């Protein structure tokens, strides 16, 4: 693979370790963020802030895994298209559905 020639053995391992520790740190952040109590008036029962923060942290984790572990950083544009299009659709659906549904139940259905 291309990246094997572009980067030294040690650099690749360092990069992988950085991703690993980033994933561990972001997992801890996800748990902490979920335990924070936001005022009820900010958007419960849908809890829009918890969901938005949770999804955003997950997106950063996904980018780290796809870009470094799955080598998209060095990949052919065709492979990138195969990876990015379904991921984009997945994220749009989760984001849009969460936001619209939460908004609906928080501000429309609940008086």
């Amino acid at each position, binding site marked *: *693979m291309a990246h*094997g020639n572009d980067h030294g*053995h040690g650099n*690749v*391992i360092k990069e*992988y*370790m950085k*991703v*690993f520790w980033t*994933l*561990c740190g972001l*997992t801890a952040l*996800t*748990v902490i963020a*979920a335990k924070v*109590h936001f005022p*009820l008036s900010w958007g*419960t*029962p*849908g*809890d829009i802030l*918890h*969901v938005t923060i*949770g999804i955003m*942290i*997950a997106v950063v*984790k*996904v980018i780290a*895994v*796809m870009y*470094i*572990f*799955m080598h998209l950083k060095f990949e*052919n544009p*065709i*492979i990138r298209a*195969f*990876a990015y*299009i*379904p*991921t984009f*659709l*997945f994220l749009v*659906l*989760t984001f849009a*559905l*969460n936001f619209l*549904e*939460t908004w*609906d*139940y928080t501000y429309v259905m609940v008086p």
Partner: protein
Amino acid sequence: MSAGLSLAHEPVTKIPSGKLAMWAFLGSELMFFTGFFGAFIVLRNANYDMFGEGSSHLNVWLALVNTFFLIGSSLTMALCIHNAEQGNRGKQQLFLGLTLVGALGFLVVKSIEYSDKWAHGYFPTQDHHTLFYSFYFIMTGFHAMHVIAGIIPMLFMWIRGFSSEGYQHPGRLEALGLYWHFVDLMWIFIFPALYLMIPYHGAAGGH
């Protein structure tokens, strides 16, 4: 590699066919899980208290241990492929073995979690928790099946790696690595969705 195997670079795209096929498969797999997430999101918001109550019985610590197993095994899989590219057969075997340990550890923890839920009567069929536990068992169950589906070729490659000639199909190892990272990616979403994102405020709806 024998001439009969079509893992060579495809002439137009210059991409190994096996790798392209794996990415196409992972795209369809993502759409498969997207259906579950879409249904989960809609029904969660319509049944917020019921989902919150169901989620509050899940063990976040066990899920965290499993997250560590998957993140760790994703790292060791990446290191295994890197060492395979470098021709370090010993380290390739070591890291593939560690990936297997992570995968099996995930299943052990998951079985502890499932048996605990069953012991307390949490089934998808039980009236009060029906909807949340239907999602819980289907989403984590399909994910666990993907883990098992990854373990089978991983075990095969690992055992073949001990033969005198070693495991000589780096393209297949790389495709397996992509699949394994995908399993990790799905857990990155399943973990907060089921275990964390439904803070339960009690039946009265207050803190």
